[in-house]
């Protein structure tokens, strides 16, 4: 299912206090594609993601999902198509609800029925077993929580999955697990992914095409390969590349590991 944004502007406040969190953002993501939005904090990338999700209303422009324009209020069926995985797995799960309760709620909302089977299938899909089903979030690790958040997003069988820095709160080793899980799910389920991150390595791992945002505007749209090769035009993108030192999918920087003596 495709995502098309035409000149989308999101504003906060009115009059002199008006602040454009995102300005004239246009992008197009084809069905089954993985698209990345990079930029530093405050660049408006999360704002764009939330406008696509329908969590914040856009002031101007058009948000189209699968060719249909989204209004200010989404219908239940429209909600089901788009789900999101949040940045902080410690804040995105209700602290007083077990995994089972968290996963059962969307089924109850959409009256899908067969909750028991759906919950265990969703857990299995993200690599968790029945032993985790009745645990509270505080009994799970960060990576496990993020898997539950992914399972919650997928239990409605959405066509579009929005990812808001899904690995930035996790340890590096766990980051790789979650990224691999996401790319497997995308392949198996044919999901359209729209991912936001400030980490070029993470974006490049998952996404084919990448848009760079700065101060609420898209400054350049490029591909993961071009970014890896350093083949970018915009000065801001070049600056971002330099600030993301260590980003090098060819693994050249890994030599550093040999150069730095390990202290016992």
């Amino acid at each position: 299912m495709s995502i098309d944004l035409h000149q989308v502007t999101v504003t906060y406040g009115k009059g002199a206090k008006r602040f454009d969190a995102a300005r004239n953002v246009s992008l197009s993501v084809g069905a089954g594609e993985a698209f990345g939005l990079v930029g530093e904090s405050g660049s408006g990338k999360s704002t764009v993601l939330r406008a696509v999700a329908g969590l914040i209303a856009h002031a101007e422009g058009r948000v189209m999902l699968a060719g249909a324009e989204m209004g200010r209020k989404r219908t239940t069926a429209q909600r089901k198509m788009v789900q999101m995985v949040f940045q902080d797995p410690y804040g995105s799960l209700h602290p007083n609800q077990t995994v089972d309760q968290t996963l059962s709620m969307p089924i109850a909302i959409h009256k899908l029925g067969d909750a028991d089977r759906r919950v265990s299938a969703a857990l299995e899909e993200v690599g968790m077993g029945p032993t985790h089903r009745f645990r509270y979030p505080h009994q799970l690790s960060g990576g496990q929580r993020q898997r539950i958040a992914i399972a919650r997003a997928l239990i409605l069988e959405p066509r579009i999955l929005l990812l808001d820095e899904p690995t930035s709160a996790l340890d590096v080793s766990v980051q790789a697990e979650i990224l691999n899980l996401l790319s497997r799910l995308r392949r198996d389920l044919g999901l359209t992914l729209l991912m936001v991150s400030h980490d070029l390595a993470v974006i490049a791992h998952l996404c084919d095409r990448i848009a760079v945002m700065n101060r609420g505007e898209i400054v350049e749209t490029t591909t993961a390969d071009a970014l890896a090769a350093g083949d970018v035009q915009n000065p801001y993108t070049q600056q971002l590349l330099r600030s993301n030192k260590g980003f090098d999918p060819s693994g050249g920087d890994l030599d550093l590991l040999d150069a730095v003596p390990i202290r016992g």
Partner: protein
Amino acid sequence: MTATRTGAGPTLRAWLLDPAPASRRQARLGGWFRAWLAFQRNTLGMVGLAIVVLLVVIAAGAPLIADPSTALTQVLEDRLQPSSWAHPFGTDELGRDIMARMAFGARITLTIVLLVSLIVVPIGLAIGLPAGYFGGWIDAVLMRLTDIFLAFPRLILALAFAAALGPGIENAVIAIALTAWPPYARLARAETMTRRRSEFIQAAELQGASHLRIIATQIVPLCLPSVIIRLTLDMAGIILTAAGLGFLGLGAQPPSPEWGAMVSTGRAVLLDQWWVATLPGIAIFITSLGFNLLGDGLRDAASGRG
């Protein structure tokens, strides 16, 4: 290996504390058991719980402790008797057994406490949750309404209500409840506002949950602990206000054995027959203390759990 529930002692404990519960019920019971373990470590909280449990037992078993008729029947030749085997706490100015009256008075106190809670918590939540959740003009209207009620001095408004509606326990309850709810509305609003922007609320919105569902299933469970703690700590104040209204003759009416009214009638003979006013006074004091200690214990257990 999961232990079955029939197992005694350590096995039941292991079943409750199992880090990987096998059912919804086991997870919920385990959660409560952990909360109980946290609470149990607080000695003063346990003392408070014991006092409250004792109060409930006395109220429930009042007919076993004393013959109901001795609480109300006047025996004028036995008036103002000191402690004896027949009347361990002595008798009052109309010859009624004070111990029996205090035991039956526990029922009145508990009834007041229960009714006030049943009125105050729903009103407080009904005002505070929408105010915190929706914000904007809904918040402004609901909170100004709350401010108006907060501006009234509690006992004075209760007095005015009791005077306007006529004295009696029911009216005392209504009067206390009408003045006691504003802090709950503010508490519920504050708790809601801190959670409103949480990502799990956004996730629920994204799933298409209605406002009612989000408030009922996501926010209320997070507000309730602090509301219950606040209520327990307020119990002392509620009991004292009820006793105060009774003392002033605006609460429970004679011959009802309400503790405040008992203190009031004993006032005339305080110097010569001290037990008539003092013993119900001690009952009010211990009950208030018990609820306060219980509330403190609950608060410590809740904050310690992280």
